Structures are given as structure tokens and as C-alpha cells.
């Protein structure tokens, strides 16, 4: 069996016709990666998708070899976990089915990742938000002097469209979103959880994504439900280290 370098996992729900530009950007980035000699698996995870979305993605599958996984989670983080479990690649790159990758994302991220042995989650340098309230959003590298962990407590520092080793995603999976318990922001929670494990979050210079800002987005629903991210022992551990104490406790 051929070694797969990257599994490009597209998480779909009910995006309908908005899937088209996502698929175009996926095709373009995968094509660039394959031209650079990388083996890329395309894996769609359809979580409670509607007919239209399923049809759009099936149509894509007729022209490009793709794998499909139908799940019934109703939860984006858990769908990403299912994708990571089913994926064959050494690395995983996540794409939500209404967002878009820049052309050089897979090649750039793979190059950066394969040149650094450390446990790292890679993010693009820049995000262009389009749709409602167009703006730019710059990611900060954890090794940038401007960054510190305390800022990650105040704000989420990165978007969810990351690039990471599959083994890391299996070791530290995303947590369930529980709006009823005011636990949300699955990506922020995952960034806190991976950081607590000593994983670095870094940016791939010269790469960018386009993120669709919808009037009703998951982030807005999460914010309306007055959620916080899942709690983390990250900050307690900082205090333990400061105090010379041994960290003995379990993740809450």
C-alpha cells in the first residue's frame, strides 16, 4: 500500500452550494501538493449532512478519488476525531466545508512539519475573513515574543484549520461540545489541551486561508450559549512549576 503523506479531511454538515468554492480550493491545494511529489488522501466526513451537500460532494468524488465517512455526531470536534481515526496519512489537514485553503497550504505546511521533529500543530500565517464583516486575522507563532500562554486563556489564538500529525490527533482528540453545559469552542479547548501537553502551535509563513463569516456561525451560537472552552490544567501546571511543585494531578 502506498504511503500517504497528508490526509486532507473536509468536515461537511449542511453547507449546500457553499461547498463548491471549498472543493475548488481543495482541488487546487491538493494538485499543488501532488505536483510537489506528495501523496494526499482526500477524506470527506459528512456529519448529519443534507442531501444537497451530499450530492455536491459525491459529484466531486466522481472526478477525484476520495474517501467518504458518514457520521451521526452533530459535533464538529468529534467529527474531526472520526476523520483522524479513519485517515491514512502521516499528517492531517482539516478543512471546514465552507472555508478555503490557499494554494500553497499543503505544500508549505508539509515542508515546515517535516523539517521540525518537535510536536507541532501548524497554522497559516494569515486568515482572510469574507462574507459578513470582512477583515484579516493574523496568527501568532508560539515562539514569537508577542505570544504567551496567558493570552491563550483570554482569547483563542488560532483557527481550527490546522495541520498536525495524525498520531497527535489520536493522542489528544477534540472534546465534545456541550452547549447545555456551556462547554464550547472545541478548537480553543483543543489548543489549550495540546498546549498543556507541551505541544507547540506555530505558523507557516507565507500561507493563508479564507474563512467564511456567516451571519449564524457555530462560534456565534457558542457565544450565544455563553460557553467557555473546556477547562485545562495548563495554568495550574505553570503555577506548580513556578512553585517547584511536582505536577501530580489529572486533567480535570
Amino acid at each position, binding site marked *: 500500500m502506498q504511503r500517504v503523506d497528508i490526509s486532507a479531511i473536509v468536515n461537511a454538515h449542511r453547507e449546500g452550494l457553499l461547498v*463548491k*468554492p471549498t472543493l*475548488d*480550493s481543495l482541488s*487546487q491545494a491538493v494538485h499543488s501538493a501532488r505536483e510537489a511529489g506528495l501523496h494526499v488522501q482526500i477524506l470527506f466526513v459528512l456529519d448529519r449532512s443534507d442531501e444537497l451537500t451530499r450530492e455536491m460532494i459525491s459529484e466531486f468524488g466522481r472526478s477525484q478519488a476520495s474517501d467518504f465517512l458518514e457520521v451521526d455526531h452533530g459535533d464538529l470536534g468529534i467529527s474531526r476525531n472520526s476523520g483522524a481515526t479513519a485517515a491514512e496519512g502521516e499528517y492531517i489537514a482539516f478543512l471546514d466545508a465552507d472555508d*478555503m485553503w*490557499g*494554494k500553497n497550504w499543503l505544500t508549505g505546511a508539509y515542508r515546515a512539519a517535516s523539517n521540525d521533529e518537535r510536536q507541532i500543530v501548524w497554522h497559516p*500565517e*494569515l486568515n*482572510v475573513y*469574507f*462574507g459578513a464583516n*470582512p*477583515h*484579516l*486575522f*493574523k496568527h*501568532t507563532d508560539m515562539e*514569537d515574543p*508577542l*505570544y*504567551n500562554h*496567558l*493570552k491563550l*486563556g*483570554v*482569547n*483563542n*489564538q488560532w483557527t481550527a484549520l490546522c495541520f498536525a500529525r495524525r498520531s497527535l490527533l489520536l493522542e489528544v482528540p477534540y472534546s465534545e461540545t456541550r452547549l*447545555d*453545559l*456551556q*462547554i464550547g469552542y472545541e478548537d480553543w479547548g483543543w489548543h489549550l489541551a495540546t498546549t498543556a501537553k507541551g505541544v507547540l502551535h506555530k505558523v507557516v509563513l*507565507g*500561507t*493563508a*486561508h*479564507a474563512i*467564511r463569516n456567516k451571519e449564524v456561525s457555530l462560534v456565534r451560537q457558542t457565544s450565544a450559549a*455563553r*460557553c*467557555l472552552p473546556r*477547562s485545562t*490544567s495548563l*495554568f*495550574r501546571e505553570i*503555577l*506548580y512549576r*513556578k*512553585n517547584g511543585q511536582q505536577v501530580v494531578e489529572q486533567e*480535570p
Partner: protein
Amino acid sequence: LNAVQASGLFDAEWYLSQHPDVAAAKVDPLTHYMKRGWREGRRPGPAFDGQRYLALYPDIASANINPLLHYVRHGKQERRSPGIAYELISLAEELVENLGQFELDIAGDPAFKHVQHLHLASPSADTPLTKAWEQLFSSLTRTYERVIFVPWLVRGGAELVAANAARAVISQHGPGSVLFVVTDHDRLEAIDWLPVGCDLRVLSEYDPTASHEDRVRLVELLMFALLPKSVLNVNSRACWDAFKTHGQALSNISNLYAALFCRDYDDAGTPGGYAVSHLRTCLPHLTKLYVDNSSFAKSLAEHYGVPATLHDCIAVIRQPWSGNAGERPFRQHQDGRPLPVLWAGRFSRQKNVDLLLRIVEAAPNIQFDVFGEGTGAINDRLIGAAQNFDNIRLKGPYSSIEALPTHRYSAFLFTSLWEGMPTTIINVGLMGLPIVSSNVGGISELVNDDTGWLISDLHNPNPYIQALQEIARDSGKAQSKVARMRERVRSLHSWEAYLAEFAKLPSFIQ
């Protein structure tokens, strides 16, 4: 020129490469930029965007000032944005051009015609909140399993309750086991009430002008970072708002406790306070609500129709008397001399100063010494009364009721319109001064016909005066009531009884 050069934001080589006409003219690039370039909207270097700077700040644009010079001299200090780095603009432009071919929401949006004018968000940028949070967290040297939030540290009953709770935690878990956080104001008059070994943080020390929203976030961040087993809110507005907004989320992290004492009332007599504005939303997320008297617990349960499953959630913990409130004699009344009466409290509507003044006016044979302070109209009325009547003296502020010379008085007069269980009554009861009190809140749990004089007509001076006259007439009766009151305080309000009640599970201190 020197300042601009030293800033590093002017890059001569870059300037010439981006503006070939300047290179061709063979002029000094910095001189060109300072004289003409900035007026022509040219970028002085990859890290400064003058056009964007002037677009963002119309006050500078209208003053026709060189944007780079302004940034170097003032803008940097004023925390203005130097603009988006050139590399980022190029990156965004490339992405917009490339993905615009797939997505009309990008290609067709005029906002993307001038990418350099878009807002650039950066989550790692410093804000007053991140700076305050970084300072606050950096000041911590250890973790805490218990955190107490208070609005301020003035000499009030609620602050005493919070200080007692801190003392109780330390008695169980040792020094450094509790973090005491002052959230809403920077007043710390009662800092000496905190027990030794109680660590204190005052949010205003990290940002004196912090908004209420930022204070709420700091409370949440402290809980999110420390993951304490339990937190106790004693009247902190920031903490009540955190409980109200994120009660469920915070109760996933810690056991949430709160203390309430009574409802407050405004000038129109409308009930208010956290019992009205926050409790119904928050109670389901609280492990326990502590109140200091049964009457209030009963009234809350009845008023809100609290179901049986939540009844255990409201616990009565009677506050202990002060360690300085030892037994003392009171002054026996001497015939022919005015009865010396002590009144002490904040000069506020709650303490019903107006009734006090009517009593003073109607009872010229009784001498009233008034301890306390206040502001505004009530204060003015008291000062006016002291000038007009011989039988009232204003004695100024006091640190605690135990510090007053109670042995010089024959009675303690308490006129409040609403209360929980005032610690003043507890301490006066133990010290041994006949008490004449309004029947509000939980006071009847201590003061009754056996132990003092309880007045239910809150606005009529006559029953108060009659009670004081009875004390003057019948010192034997006053003596026996004082003795029974002492006994009652001893059985209900000892430190041991308080600790035993506080330790009942689930408990903030266990």
C-alpha cells in the same frame, strides 16, 4: 530625521526598490520621503503604512501631519497601529486574487479592493484585559483550592462575613490556603480584618480603570486558570455577573458558593440587590447559598417558590461574635440625669436616620451619642440636628462596635429598615448593653421580649422612646434581659458553632 531613522520603520533600500522613480532621480530617499513621499502616500518601509495610518486616524489626517513622524513622536506611545506589514498585505492580496476566482463573495466584495485598509485582528495583541490578566497571574506564586470574592474591603457586615470565612478556611487548611480577591473597587479600610495567612489580590491594582466587563472576565479567568475546588462570592458584583453569565460553565470547574444577607431597598421602597437581580438565575448553579439568619432563608424559599430539591441549597450559618467583644457592664441609669443611649451605624437610608432624629426631637430627656459617618442629605440633617438639639452628639466614625466605650451607655438603639443578622447586634448582645431594635430581617432571632425590646412599628418614634424610658425606670428588668441575651448569643453565635455549621457538607471550607 533622527527619530524617524532610529525607529527602524524607514527602510531606505526598500523605499528605493518600491519607488523606482525616486531611485532614478538619485535623491536621498529619507529626505524624499520626509519632504514629498508621505504626501504622495508612499510607504516608508515594509512595516509602516502611512495611508492606512491616516485612514484609521482622521484627527491626524485632518492636521496634515507626516504619519510616520507622528507615529514615532506620539502614536506609538498612544498605542496607535503602525499599519499592516507589507508582507501580510501581499499575502492577503495574493489569496484574494487566487480564491476570488472560486468565490464571488471575495471577488465581488469592494472591501477586498483595498486589502490594506481592512481591519487586522491579532489575538496576541495587548489589550487592557490581557495586560491586567498577565500581571495578576504573574503575581500568583501558588495554586489555591479556595477563592473568596468581595467587592471591596470596607468595615461592613458583609466584609466581616468574608473575613470570617477566610479565617475558617485557614483554621482547617493552614496559611496560604485561601485567596481573597477584591473585585469592584480599591477601598481597603478593613484590610486588618483579614486573618494572617490569607493571600490578597485587588483587581484595581492591575488596572485601576478596568471596565466592569474586564473585571468580570478577570474573575472568570482566575477560576479558569486556578481550577479551585470552591469559590465563595460575598457581594462581589463582578463575581455575581460571572455567575449569571457563565454559571453553568463555572460550576463545571468549581463548586460555587455565595452569601446573601437581605434584600436592599431603594428610596421608593422597591426591593433590589443580588437576591432580586441575580439569585434566581444563579441558584441552580450554586452548591450552596449561605445566609446569616433563618428569616431570610425562609423568605427566599417562599418568595421564589424554591422547590424541596433546592431547599438544602440554602444554608443558615450564624456569624460568630468578635473576638474583642468581651462581657462588660452597662451604665446604670441615675435618677435626674438623661439616659445615655448609643446609636452607631452608617448614615444611610437603610439605618433609618430619619427615625432616629424624630426620636431625638421627641425625647429631650434622653442623651443620644451617634457614632458613624456618611455623606449627602442624611449627613446634613444629622449635623443640623446636632446644632439644634442639646440631646444629640455626633461622635465621628468608629472602627468596630467593640472599640466603643459601651460601658458608658445604658442602652443601644438600632433603627434599621432592613438587615440580615447584624453583627453589631450580636456583639452588643454579648458585651451586655440593653438593646432596643427594629424588628427587621433576622433580628427577632436574637432580640425578643426576653432578651431586649423589639419594635415592629418601624416609623413611629413612640414605642422606641417608651422602651428607652422603661430601661431608665427598671434597671432590674434591663439587667435580666441583658443576661438572657448573653446566654442566647453564647449558644447561637460562638466560633465553634459557626465552624461546625460551616463544615456541614457540601461546604466551602471542607
